[in-house]
């Protein structure tokens, strides 16, 4: 094959690829849905816009993570570093330089965080897997430690209070209800999201997905893997920085805890929950997580974490590709036909599985009942007297729960087995 034909061939391939991308780039009508919901939320929950703004900020933060985690396959537990850099950029600019114009402020936050991402990414992105994970954690932790070391500048863990920002466009004041903030953050999110969407569906975005799928091959075909990764990392850092800047502006306050490991872990959990590598996964994940957290912590300020944990475990058991994955498979789902339904028979395996589930549920129930006695009672007598009835009740409850959960699991998984092309 001559060079010329080869060249021609790549050209047409490239042409086809860009046609394909252009097609995918068209907006699907369903994509308007989250935005319409966000606007509707304003009118329905107009008293709760302080919380609403925080949800939008977390969505933006999760989108930034999706860009590197979902599309480039970079696993990080230190993304709070860039969120924090953005947050402190606007805080320090306002406090020390008197630069209080909000929109230029978030741009500055994005630029500073992006530059930091560029430098750090250049060093770190030679590594992958656990090594990279630990480097990202260490970077965020070192920023936090140095911030505390210079608490004369950063305000340490008491933070920088009394930040004031100019009215938006010199006109809109920040009200107590957070209405201005909500529109402001929503607009920022829309702009950022548009950019991210462009990036993802560009040839650059496709190259990233290629890197995620197979680094070695991308290296072999001469793709500048490292620089691409660094570039996307910097972009992601910049967006995280913008989210952080908005965080500072809407709160008018920032402390060093923005760099916490918890912040990084939480945003990652939100994203995986919603579904990685699908843009709107960040919307679903962040919203579901934060609304549920808010709801549960209202219901039980002390034990709400149990509900969140359960959500995550159940989500990962039943929704392998995140919550958005469920929606996608639901839209492609056809209810079993009569023939398929008949094929679902209660085999002995299922009975066995249910028996095991009952045993496990009973075991857990026993442990809970038992531990409950151990933890609650500091005296033996209570333990002895309350032992039988309470523990037996817990065993029964656990066994019943085990059966129900497993039955549901079996039904769901056997359904997907039926869906497979028949042999």
């Amino acid at each position: 094959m001559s060079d010329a034909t080869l060249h021609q061939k790549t050209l047409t391939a490239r042409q086809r690829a860009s046609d394909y991308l252009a097609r995918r780039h068209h907006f699907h009508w369903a994509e308007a849905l989250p935005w319409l919901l966000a606007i509707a939320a304003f009118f329905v929950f107009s008293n709760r816009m302080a919380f609403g703004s925080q949800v939008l900020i977390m969505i933006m933060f999760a989108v930034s993570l999706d860009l590197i985690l979902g599309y480039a396959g970079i696993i990080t537990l230190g993304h709070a570093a860039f969120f924090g850099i953005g947050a402190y950029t606007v805080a320090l600019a306002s406090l020390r330089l008197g630069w209080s114009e909000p929109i230029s402020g978030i741009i500055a936050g994005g630029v500073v965080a992006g530059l930091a991402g560029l430098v750090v990414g250049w060093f770190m992105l030679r590594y992958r897997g656990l090594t990279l994970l630990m480097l990202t954690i260490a970077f965020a932790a070192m920023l936090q430690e140095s911030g505390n070391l210079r608490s004369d500048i950063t305000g340490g863990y008491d933070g920088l209070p009394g930040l004031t920002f100019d009215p938006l466009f010199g006109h809109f004041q920040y009200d107590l209800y957070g209405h201005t903030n909500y529109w402001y953050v929503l607009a920022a999110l829309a702009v950022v999201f548009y950019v991210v969407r462009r990036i993802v569906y560009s040839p650059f975005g496709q190259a990233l997905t290629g890197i995620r799928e197979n680094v070695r091959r991308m290296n072999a075909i001469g793709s500048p893997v490292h620089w691409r990764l660094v570039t996307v990392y910097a972009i992601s850092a910049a967006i995280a920085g913008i989210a952080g800047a908005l965080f500072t502006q809407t709160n008018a306050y920032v402390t060093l805890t923005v760099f916490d490991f918890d912040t990084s872990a939480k945003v990652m959990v939100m994203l995986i929950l919603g579904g990685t590598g699908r843009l709107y996964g960040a919307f679903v994940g962040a919203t579901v997580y934060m609304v549920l957290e808010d709801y549960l912590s209202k219901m039980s300020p002390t034990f709400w974490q149990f509900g969140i944990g359960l959500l995550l475990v159940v989500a990962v058991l039943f929704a392998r590709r995140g919550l958005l994955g469920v929606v996608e498979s639901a839209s492609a789902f056809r209810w079993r036909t009569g023939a398929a339904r008949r094929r679902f028979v209660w085999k002995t395996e299922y009975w066995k599985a249910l028996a095991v589930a009952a045993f496990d549920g009973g075991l857990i129930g026993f442990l809970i009942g038992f531990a409950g006695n151990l933890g609650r009672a500091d005296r033996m007598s209570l333990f002895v007297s309350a032992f039988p009835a309470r523990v037996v009740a817990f065993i029964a409850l656990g066994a019943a729960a085990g059966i129900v959960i497993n039955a549901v699991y079996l039904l769901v998984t056997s359904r997907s087995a039926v869906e497979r092309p028949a042999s």
Partner: protein
Amino acid sequence: MPHALNDFISVLFDGLAYAMFLFITSVGLSVTMGLMGFVNLAHGAFAMAGGFIVVSLARTYGIDFIPALVIASVTVGLISVRFEQRLYRRFYKSTDLEQVLLTIGLAFMSIAAFTYFYGPIPKSVPLPHWLQGDVNLGFRTFPTYRAFLIVLGAVLIAILWFVFEKTNIGAKIRAAVDNRRMAESVGINVDRLFTLTFAVGSGLAALGGGLAIQLLGLTPSFALLYLVLFLIVVAVGGMGSLKGTLLAALVIGIVDTGGKYLFPVAGTFFIYVITVAVLLVKPAGFFGRE
């Protein structure tokens, strides 16, 4: 005694004791991640469970600290078998992200559950008399509990080293870490090996949790609070490597102690500096496979 020498001995001794705690608690995580490729962020929850069982046994039943430690490790080890068989096994072939979601969910649940049963107040446990006070080694005294940690750590390391390096089962574990597919192809039941090592790892974590009561204190947030520390030990040592984990625990333990002793202003900075330095030079950790 010259001042500098005294400093040096202090750092070495305290660092060693701390390192032993880190090793005991982290080694299970290292093997889980190395052998099964499973990111178990609920490892700290097993450690915490061990700690609380020790508290319950010692305070409710008046069982001595040492037997309580043994019972707690064995119990948690056994319970972890069911977790592994019923829950974790489904996720060996899943992505890291799903494993993260599952195990962090479990950690959250455990925090809330233990808060419910034990409350949020830090727990303590009565130590036997022979573990209190100082031991005099002639030239200076050392806290007995720390000395006990060092001895216990050394004994455990010797046992683990023997099992891992000198027995057939150890060789099988190493084979499975090297190449799971091939290990199965020579007839090793890797699933059962996983369950076994997972149980031992969780049991050791529980032991670490019991030992931590006296060292760091024990509250339900223990499940996630020290997770990063354990991950650091695993990453710096190299996943699945026993001697790597030991070396990492020693380096982290002694450097952290030395840093706090000599330059307290820099706080925990040193741990991260060491982590970054080691990983930049040896990305897979001291004894990890590239």
